[in-house]
């Protein structure tokens, strides 16, 4: 069993319950949606211990608790105070055990992996549809700097992705793009437990990078970013990739701080910023996107009560969006309400999954507010895009 690797950590849980928080909606999105103790990190460690000791088994029913985890790492953050247990690694190992033992997992998790394998992306898009966002943009073959949008940025947010590329190019970045070869980074494999398929997939992508002479990757997707920085080296058994990997927010911060764009337009709006779990808690990228917003004149940045390492998940993590859409929506509505309570007229973030979930919450709550990528705000400040894209009633073509 994969969880055997984490035996010491599982037994280290002192059952202090710091992970749960004061309220069901405070820290853990799973306990907010499923409310039983078995949904908390403490509960999961008890379950893992039961499995290790042979008193519990992986079952179809248990899948809801394990695949209902958003992998947001809020519990892991809290556990740093107590036992420093890597709850996420243990949860992923449990998912791998489900798959390896042939226990039924949510159908949509399987489908996501099937789509990825058969079409190259999680939406089963044809390459033409998937890469439609790039129509009209010019890329520089084998420039060494690869723009890697990831599935969500390609499929769902074509305009946002196009704007990001225009900003990067305006700031002088010569970007390459894989075009027909663009495929998913493989994240569905490790969040669903299909590690048996991971090495082949990773080797295939690395081959592509080699063929395109990639020296650096810029991606707006935190999952892709973490895949290249964390998962690929682990799977390949190397310390780090021989490729520099940057999240778009890090690049945009450099653009602002090094004044690579003339931010001549004032953006007179109050905005808040949502920290995506995968680059916030997982990678410590908190200030970079905020520095972008702070660099724009007229813009007033207001913080949500839960921010940075205490940030609440958008509801899109861990594959829950597909497996349990009601849970996902409940969490995203909770987060959007917090964002609105700041008085912000727009919610900014730097993750396509967060943008998608928070946008769905906006629709659900019928709010007059837009969820923006910081690149869109920067594009307006730099005069690359008209300020109408910031307006709450603006509706992108995609």
């Amino acid at each position, binding site marked *: 069993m994969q969880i055997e690797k984490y035996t010491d950590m599982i037994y*280290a849980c*002192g059952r*202090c319950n710091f992970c749960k928080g004061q309220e069901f909606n405070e820290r853990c999105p799973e306990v907010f949606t499923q409310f039983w*103790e*078995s949904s908390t990190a403490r509960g999961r460690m008890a379950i893992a211990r039961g499995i290790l000791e042979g008193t519990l088994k992986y079952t179809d029913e248990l899948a809801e608790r394990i695949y209902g985890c958003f992998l947001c790492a809020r519990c892991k953050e*809290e556990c740093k*105070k107590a036992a420093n247990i890597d709850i996420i690694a243990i949860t992923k190992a449990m998912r791998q055990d489900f798959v390896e033992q042939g226990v039924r997992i949510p159908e949509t998790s399987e489908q996501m992996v099937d789509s990825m394998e058969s079409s190259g992306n999680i939406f089963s898009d044809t390459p033409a549809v998937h890469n439609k966002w790039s129509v009209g943009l010019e890329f520089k073959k084998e420039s060494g700097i690869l723009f890697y949008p990831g599935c969500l940025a390609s499929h769902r947010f074509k305009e946002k992705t196009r704007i990001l590329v225009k900003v990067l190019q305006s700031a002088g970045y010569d970007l390459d793009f894989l075009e027909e070869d663009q495929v998913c980074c493989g994240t569905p494999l490790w969040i669903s437990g299909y590690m048996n398929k991971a090495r082949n997939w990773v080797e295939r992508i690395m081959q592509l990078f080699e063929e395109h002479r990639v020296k650096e990757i810029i991606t707006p997707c935190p999952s892709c970013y973490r895949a290249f920085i964390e998962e690929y080296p682990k799977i390949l058994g190397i310390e780090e990739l021989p490729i520099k990997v940057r999240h778009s927010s890090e690049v945009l911060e450099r653009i602002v701080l090094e004044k690579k764009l003339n931010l001549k337009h004032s953006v007179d709006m109050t905005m808040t910023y949502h920290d995506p779990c995968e680059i916030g808690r997982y990678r410590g990228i908190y200030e970079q996107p905020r520095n972008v917003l702070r660099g724009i004149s007229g813009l007033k940045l207001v913080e949500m009560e839960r921010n940075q390492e205490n940030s609440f998940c958008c509801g899109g993590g861990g594959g829950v969006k597909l497996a349990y859409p009601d849970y996902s929506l409940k969490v995203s509505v909770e987060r959007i309400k917090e964002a609105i309570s700041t008085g912000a007229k727009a919610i900014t973030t730097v993750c396509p999954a967060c943008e998608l979930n928070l946008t769905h919450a906006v629709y659900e709550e019928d709010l007059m507010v837009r969820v923006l990528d910081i690149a869109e705000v920067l594009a307006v400040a730099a005069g690359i895009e008209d300020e109408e894209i910031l307006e709450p009633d603006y509706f992108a073509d995609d």
Partner: protein
Amino acid sequence: MIVLSERIEQVLVEIVGADRVTSKDFDLIPYSRDLSPAKQKFPRFVVMPTNKEEIQEILKAANQHEFPVYVRGGGTSHWDAYLCQEPGVLLDLSLMNKIIEINKRDLTATVQPNCTWSKLDRELQKHGLTYLCSEAGGPAMTIGGSVMKAGGGPHSTAKFGLHGNQDIITLEIVLPNGDIVETGSAAWPSAGKFKRQCLGPDLAGLFIGSEGILGVCTELTLRIRPVSSKKIRMVAIVDSLDKVIEFGHFINRHVGDEYLQGSYFWVDPTAPDVFILMMDLFGYEDEILEFRKKRIIEKISELGGKLEDPTPANDYYDRVLTGLTDIFATGVWHFFGSGSLRIDDIPFLYKVWLEEIIEKRGMKTVGLGGQILPRDWLAFMVTNYQEPSEWEQIIEIADEINEIVLNGPVVPYGIGGRDGLRNIVAKHNTGYYCLLKSIKKMLDPKNILQRGIFIPEEDL
């Protein structure tokens, strides 16, 4: 048995709805342990009630169908006090966690039992108020659980005692037969929740510390006080236990005007001759606080002690409500050899610790600690240990030490179930214990509630 089980489930579902009843093995297992090394004990069902009426109905059904009911708050008991001693119905009170009222005029707060200290304090601070919670497990520690075990901790107890002595004003309790009673001034419906001792005997005191065996607490009203933004923390080291005792008496001398709100005493197993005192000074005015600081410095100096960098005390007291750090870095916890004792009797506990733990067993992980309360100590031995490899050894040692300690001048604190101290208490069979058994029999003739907690079933 299966038929009965199905009938119980049906009854529970009728009361709270199917979505708040579970019997799935993976849902039950998280409720099978607490913070202590007590053996796993499984409920048969877990139910999440949302109000007293549901609890009332469950208890009535329990009497009718004769199934045991257990109560769980935050699940952080240190002594097997809220684990199902038999596979019964466990009430997980997590959904009953609301702050019902903060009365700024009367300086009272009314809460549901699963409101945590941290949640209450966060809300009180918005109004410039505080309870001054004493529990170090503040972020997870529920008020109901804490009061039902008569809690105490490193913070505020030096001044106010366990739960501020009289700070718990009124309680609302669902008795084992389903009757709902209120204590103190709340017992008089046309009055209000403002006073503990009135009308007659202090019935709140009957329930506080009873570990839930006499009723399920569904609401509490607490005395609160203005918050003080003034903060002085100190750390001192003295070289003998006699000096610790002198210091204990010194800060307790000014009854009603104790200098400290918290005073934590610690002896590390690696340096058994070094006595550390962490202090949290109390005061609303700079002038008063500075005076107290000056007097404490003088006293420490008179005792030949040394003042140290106060950073550890700042860190410790600041984290009482947000979470102490690295608590399980070297293993999970066990507290043992603990209880209440006179200020002058701390050498007894120290001697047991030194001779039995440090010298005889050579254990370098078990520390001795305690809090000075008005006129007494709440002291304990505590260790981190590895589960499961060291579990058996720790249990064995803890049992031996508990026997020795409780045969001395130490009153047991935290009784619990069969893996707690209940057998030691039963063996002593004091008049107090006999009276408690009589009260339990009268209120709960079928021994429905918390069966096996505090009082062994065969004793009833």
